[in-house]
């Protein structure tokens, strides 16, 4: 949680809204973590750490939500927490119904967070009430099943401390000390926080006696001397001190309250942590009051350091002066640490930066690259002998800018695990629904790709995984009958190859049925023949509305999907391939460029204008011979290329512009291929091959048919990037119209 630093910067007016974003991000992370843990959990023998981690996640969200007054979120997480507290203490056995309910609650929380983030007033209504009711129903007498087996050890300690503890008995008295005050945290700020605290239970203000905090003997003198200095100077002194915790004893400017509440210590800490710098608050349970099993090891998450040993037991003294009735035993001081990383989920040595900033940086670097190539062009005209050092400098600049560009692009790169992490849940839910047994394997979680791509690849991948689950993997009995193991396997694999990232979705299911696909295609009136290659047959499933599923399930089978998958991936500049062996499984391979911002392009000239063709679409280029070009009635020309007749599309015709080549032989034909269709594009000349930075035309203008974007050339001029898919379709429709 990165809130510690931010919380410390609040000025006198605590504007909680500025922390909302932090809360949303953290709550989102907690939810993701909770989901991952729930999906992975071993129902028979859940690990104590896992259970605690899940509890903590719900808990932290509740704390934050309560601070910001997000009642809907607080309410639901409270119910979740209540249930899971019992599970974690071994008073309730963990069943799949609890896991399911928690997953559903997690989804609801995500909705709630999204709603709040959008500035809404929260989610309420039947679904929420239903979830809460179902969570409460788990607590009903009789519903609480006794613990069995291995989970017992988790619970043993807690049970010993609080035998049969019910939720209501967890009322306790907390002593909360704010301070020392300084420029980061002022008494005025704390007033607001204390007001909020009143919402958690019965609040009692304690006199902020400086001396009472300190050691009985030495305190008065020390406190007196301390009072002579200004509060601010003392605070600075404390800051300079190596261990602020030790100075706490000597800091008189504190604010103390006592709160009788059913909110736990760590709950309080989570809540306060959103508002006050963690090292400026101490929460101490006061013993001798109707307190709960606070000392139980289960209650301490290992999150917060118990520094009773290193502080000179300040609260022991304070307890004596403020509540003489208490037993002399020193209550535990729970020092508020930045409620840190629960798990190694994210690298600690990272910072959160808005995508906007990164994109701005990348844009600037893109500019720099353009400027650099302009300079290089100019410098190339200078005499290399006379201006040797200039040439060297320019060469050096080129290397540096390239490195800089690569480094800045890599900021946007995200590991594939970001994408893969959502699939265990999906597979678990669907497998349960379909009654199949499936193991999901992921490989290459570390392979990186552009953040923009990770966002867009999720939907197509989800479709493919669903398909594998529904159509690929057979029912357990069927698998056994075929000599396979009961459990099917779906493998998600990502790796880099050349300038691409390759993502595979493979299953060991029944594979694609060639005959059935052909029959279905015939039935739908598609032009198919028995001689088609396997590859061609597999491509048929990408046709709109094509589904061979005998039964339409709510998982898949409506034939909506594969064509969308293919289109989405094509839009990202990628390709989809299928390999399948009947009875052995199917593998779908997606190839994507590493980034959306840079493109390998071939530049061609028509008249005085330069156009960029994305290199991925270019098959070859050739100088046409007169004999190879034939006219087709009403459909322009076709060109014969090694036995194939390809439609000719003259770029100057498409864009109504002047051109140089007065006959076919004077120009160049570039064969482009999109979605399996080839077209011959006629241009005046080939100029070269470049890496270009893609610029959007739509930012300030509108979409232009046949153009997918623009780029800035070395000389500062704008060149248009061709939308190959559009051009090929255009050539195709012309032929189709004529036919």
């Amino acid at each position, binding site marked *: 949680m990165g809130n510690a630093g931010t919380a410390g910067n609040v000025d006198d007016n605590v504007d909680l809204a500025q922390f909302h974003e932090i809360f949303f991000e953290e709550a989102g992370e907690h939810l993701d973590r909770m989901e991952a843990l729930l999906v992975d959990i071993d129902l028979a023998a859940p690990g104590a750490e896992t259970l605690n981690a899940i509890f903590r996640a719900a808990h932290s969200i509740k704390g934050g939500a309560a601070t910001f007054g997000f009642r809907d979120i607080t309410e639901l997480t409270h119910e979740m927490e209540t249930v899971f507290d019992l599970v974690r203490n071994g008073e309730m056995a963990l069943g799949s119904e609890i896991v399911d309910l928690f997953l559903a609650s997690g989804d609801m929380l995500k909705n709630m967070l999204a709603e709040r983030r959008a500035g809404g007033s929260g989610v309420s209504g039947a679904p929420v009430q239903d979830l809460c009711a179902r969570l409460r129903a788990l607590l009903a007498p009789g519903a609480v099943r006794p613990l069995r087996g291995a989970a017992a050890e988790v619970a043993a300690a807690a049970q010993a401390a609080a035998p049969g503890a019910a939720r209501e008995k967890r009322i306790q008295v907390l002593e909360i000390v704010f301070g020392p005050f300084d420029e980061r945290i002022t008494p005025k700020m704390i007033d607001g926080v204390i007001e909020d605290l009143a919402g958690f239970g019965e609040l009692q203000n304690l006199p902020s006696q400086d001396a009472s905090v300190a050691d009985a003997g030495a305190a008065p003198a020390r406190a007196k001397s301390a009072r002579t200095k200004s509060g601010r100077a003392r605070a600075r002194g404390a800051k300079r001190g190596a261990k602020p915790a030790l100075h706490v004893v000597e800091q008189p400017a504190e604010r103390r309250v006592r709160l009788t509440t059913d909110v736990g210590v760590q709950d309080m800490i989570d809540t306060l942590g959103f508002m006050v710098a963690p090292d400026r608050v101490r929460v101490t349970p006061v013993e001798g009051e109707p307190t709960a099993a606070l000392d139980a090891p289960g209650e301490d998450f290992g999150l917060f350091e118990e520094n009773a040993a290193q502080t000179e037991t300040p609260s022991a003294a304070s307890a004596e002066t403020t509540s003489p009735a208490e037993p002399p035993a020193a209550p535990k001081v729970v020092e508020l640490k930045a409620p840190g990383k629960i798990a190694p989920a994210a690298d600690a040595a990272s910072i959160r930066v808005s995508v906007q900033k990164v994109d701005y940086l990348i844009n600037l670097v*893109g500019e720099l690259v353009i400027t650099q190539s302009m300079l290089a062009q100019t410098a190339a005209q200078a005499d290399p002998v006379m201006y040797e050092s200039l040439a060297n400098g320019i060469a050096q600049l080129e290397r540096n800018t390239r490195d800089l560009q690569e480094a800045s692009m890599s900021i946007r790169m995200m590991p594939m695990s970001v994408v893969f992490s959502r699939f265990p849940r999906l597979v678990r839910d669907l497998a349960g629904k379909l009654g199949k047994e499936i193991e999901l394997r992921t490989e290459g979680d570390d392979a990186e790709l552009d953040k923009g791509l990770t966002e867009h690849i999720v939907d197509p991948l989800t479709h493919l995984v669903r398909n594998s689950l529904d159509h690929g993997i057979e029912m357990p009995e069927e698998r056994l009958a075929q000599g396979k193991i009961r459990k099917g396997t779906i493998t998600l694999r990502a790796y880099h190859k050349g300038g691409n990232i390759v993502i595979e979705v493979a299953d060991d299911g029944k594979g694609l049925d060639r005959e059935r696909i052909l029959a279905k295609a015939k039935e739908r009136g598609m032009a198919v023949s028995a001689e088609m290659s396997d590859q061609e047959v597999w491509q048929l499933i990408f046709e709109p509305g094509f589904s061979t599923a005998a039964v339409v399930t709510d998982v898949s089978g409506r034939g909506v999907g594969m064509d969308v998958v293919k289109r989405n991936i094509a839009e990202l500049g990628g390709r989809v391939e299928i390999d399948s062996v009947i009875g052995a499984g199917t593998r779908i391979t997606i190839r994507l460029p590493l980034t959306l911002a840079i493109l390998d392009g071939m530049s061609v000239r028509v008249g005085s*204008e330069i156009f960029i063709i994305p290199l991925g679409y270019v098959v070859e280029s050739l100088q046409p011979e007169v004999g190879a070009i034939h006219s087709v009635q009403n459909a322009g020309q076709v060109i014969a290329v090694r036995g194939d007749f390809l439609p000719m599309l003259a770029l100057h015709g*498409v*864009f*109504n512009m002047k051109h140089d080549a007065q006959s076919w032989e004077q120009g160049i034909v570039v064969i482009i291929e999109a979605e399996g269709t080839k077209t011959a594009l006629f241009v005046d000349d080939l100029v070269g091959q470049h890496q270009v930075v893609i610029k959007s*035309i*739509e930012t300030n203008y*509108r979409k*232009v048919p046949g153009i997918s974007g623009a780029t800035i050339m070395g000389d500062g001029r704008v060149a*248009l990037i061709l939308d190959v898919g559009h051009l090929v379709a255009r050539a195709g429709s012309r032929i189709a119209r004529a036919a």
Partner: protein
Amino acid sequence: MLQDALHEDSYAGSPAKAGIAAQVQEYLTYRVGAEEYGIDILKVQEIRGYEAVTPIANSPAWLKGIINLRGTIVPVVDMRIKFNLEKVDYDQFTVVIILSVAGRVIGMVVDGVSDVIGLAAEQIRPAPEMGGAVDARYIVGLGTVETGMIILVDIEQLMSSADMALFEKPVH
């Protein structure tokens, strides 16, 4: 309505001056053909000389093309073609006013930029109903200055209008 709009603008635009001359708004004046136009200075990002553009195929004639404005692709419209002027020359006086309107950056070719003038509310007269080059809907009013009359244009409305075809769908 006009008063309100001006009042609002002068506050939003130059809070520092609001106290001194609350009712004065500054306009950039430019020439298109024989006419003098004025637009809210706050909509103007910069003024550049005319340079070669990259034409966009199959676009309206007044869309000259796109240029590279320090790394941003900016469309350039020629108001003289839009207003059907007979004489459309590109010489040393031809300038491109870079506008920042409706969240977009758009270049506008005009015959020349004249001045920046401050107009008080009482110097602005409502435009009479007339058929002119600029649709009366986009005329805020007529400003009177010593040298003559300035047609004040709501450039944001004009540029985002459907018949300019600059936007995917009209903003207003």
